[in-house]
């Protein structure tokens, strides 16, 4: 492992793992406690439309993904809030349309699109320095927003009706949360690919939920777990020559199952 660190790509990959773990740890906690995994999946897949658009316009596809995922977040938030029924159907539709738009844009793009698969399955080993900068900026934005709206985010997550009675602008706060999910999804896409984004978003938070009783501590533990999972997964994929994104997910999944087992055993003795 040590000798691997002499490579730029390995150092970049480790840095990317740390940077996404920060966003993932914080936002994953909100996804888990609010039970909005499905919406987050919708946002992730709709972002693919932006990747296609990015290729078509010959700009960094990350920018396209940011625009599309933010638009999807806004759209899904409005749909969830304003239509009283079948929100999940509409989210499912937007999920599929986003992907379809991406594929069609790629079809329309001249020439062979080399690393399209990397957005589906992730390619942490090819993260360029410029993407690391984007990730760091997104981390800062997410930390700042969560710090500023912490009490409102806690309130709408715990008891939205009470928050409304206390005149918290619940719809606005919810849309801000979905927007932050969109940004996190874009970062994660680079590391594990958009198909597996949801796993990395939810597993560290779901594990920490079992061992903490406070949102802040849950975020801290999730961030640490995220860093451990990405680093371990990266090392395993390097040592065994496996796809890094999938290896990271399997490491996280293994830890998640172990935590469930541990919980089941200790509960029986309690």
């Amino acid at each position: 492992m040590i000798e691997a660190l002499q490579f730029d790509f390995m150092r970049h990959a480790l840095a990317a793992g740390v940077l996404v773990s920060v966003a993932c740890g914080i936002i994953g906690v909100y996804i888990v406690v609010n039970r909005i995994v499905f919406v987050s999946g919708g946002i992730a897949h709709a972002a693919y439309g932006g990747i296609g658009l990015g290729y078509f316009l010959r700009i960094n596809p990350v920018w396209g993904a940011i625009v599309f995922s933010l638009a999807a977040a806004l759209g899904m938030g409005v749909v969830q809030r304003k239509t009283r029924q079948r929100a999940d159907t509409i989210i499912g539709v937007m999920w599929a349309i986003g992907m379809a738009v991406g594929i069609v844009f790629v079809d329309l793009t001249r020439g062979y699109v080399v690393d399209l698969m990397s957005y589906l399955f992730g390619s942490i080993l090819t993260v360029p320095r410029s993407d690391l900068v984007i990730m760091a900026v997104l981390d800062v934005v997410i930390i700042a927003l969560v710090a500023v709206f912490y009490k409102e985010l806690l309130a709408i997550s715990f008891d939205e009706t009470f928050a409304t009675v206390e005149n918290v602008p619940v719809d606005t706060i919810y849309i801000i949360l979905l927007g932050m999910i969109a940004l996190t999804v874009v970062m994660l896409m680079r590391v594990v690919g958009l198909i597996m984004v949801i796993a990395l978003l939810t597993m560290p938070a779901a594990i920490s939920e079992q061992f903490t009783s406070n949102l802040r501590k849950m975020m801290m533990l999730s961030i640490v777990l995220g860093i451990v999972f990405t680093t371990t997964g990266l090392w395993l994929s390097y040592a065994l020559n496996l796809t890094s994104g999938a290896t990271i997910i399997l490491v996280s999944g293994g830890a998640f199952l172990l935590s469930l087992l541990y919980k089941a055993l200790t509960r029986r003795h309690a």
Partner: protein
Amino acid sequence: MSIRREVIRLEDMWAGYDGEPVLESINLSIKERDFVGIIGPNGGGKTTLLKVMLGLMQPNRGRVRILGRSAAQGRRFIGYVPQQVDFDRNFPVNVYDVAMMGRLGRRGLLRRYTSEDRRAVTRALQQVEMLDMKDRPIGELSTGQRQRVYIARALATEPKILFLDEPTASVDSHVTTSIYELLRKLNEHVTILLISHDMSAISSHVKTVGCLNRRLFYHESREITPEMLEEAYHCPIDLIAHGVPHRVFAPHSGENVKA
């Protein structure tokens, strides 16, 4: 007897969903330090009534005034204790932080909680005798203890009026008595309106009772008359009867009537 100020007024208020009326022509006047219990069958519009008064739902017709203001304006004077439904035991939050949510209305966006907020929360937790448990995760509490925390959260808003939705649902009769005991103490300073389908508990603890089933039958008296029940529950009085009117007139403590 001094003249008490009117704090809630509903005039010919109609409300419903998709044009289907759930509440018809509700008239209600509640004065300072009243302790009103409203009973009625499930689906009779009890929760809708609270929603309209909290500005969570617009009435189709009529007027709602909370301390002379619209519901959305007046709700900052109301401490709301919602019904405990689909509670997430794993939610990572402790008692103190839940009670602190009662200060959200005082501290708007972009403002941090102050020492004044912390004092109000400590006082509220003291009032419900839950200060010793302030660091406990909310999921570890019993239903009755959790209800006290929600009452503390409502008290932390420093309300003039308390609204409680089914405060004693799914707690045993011993806990029910202690919660009503607490409410009786709080009633020395705040007006209380609570809704429940638990007739025996309500009638033995509140000052005045109303019956709600689409229409409200409220005569500012403590007694539930067979006529009120008959009007409120329409014909199916037999279904709930089985000696219920008897218990309403002479409640036995410790008994639980569940329809």
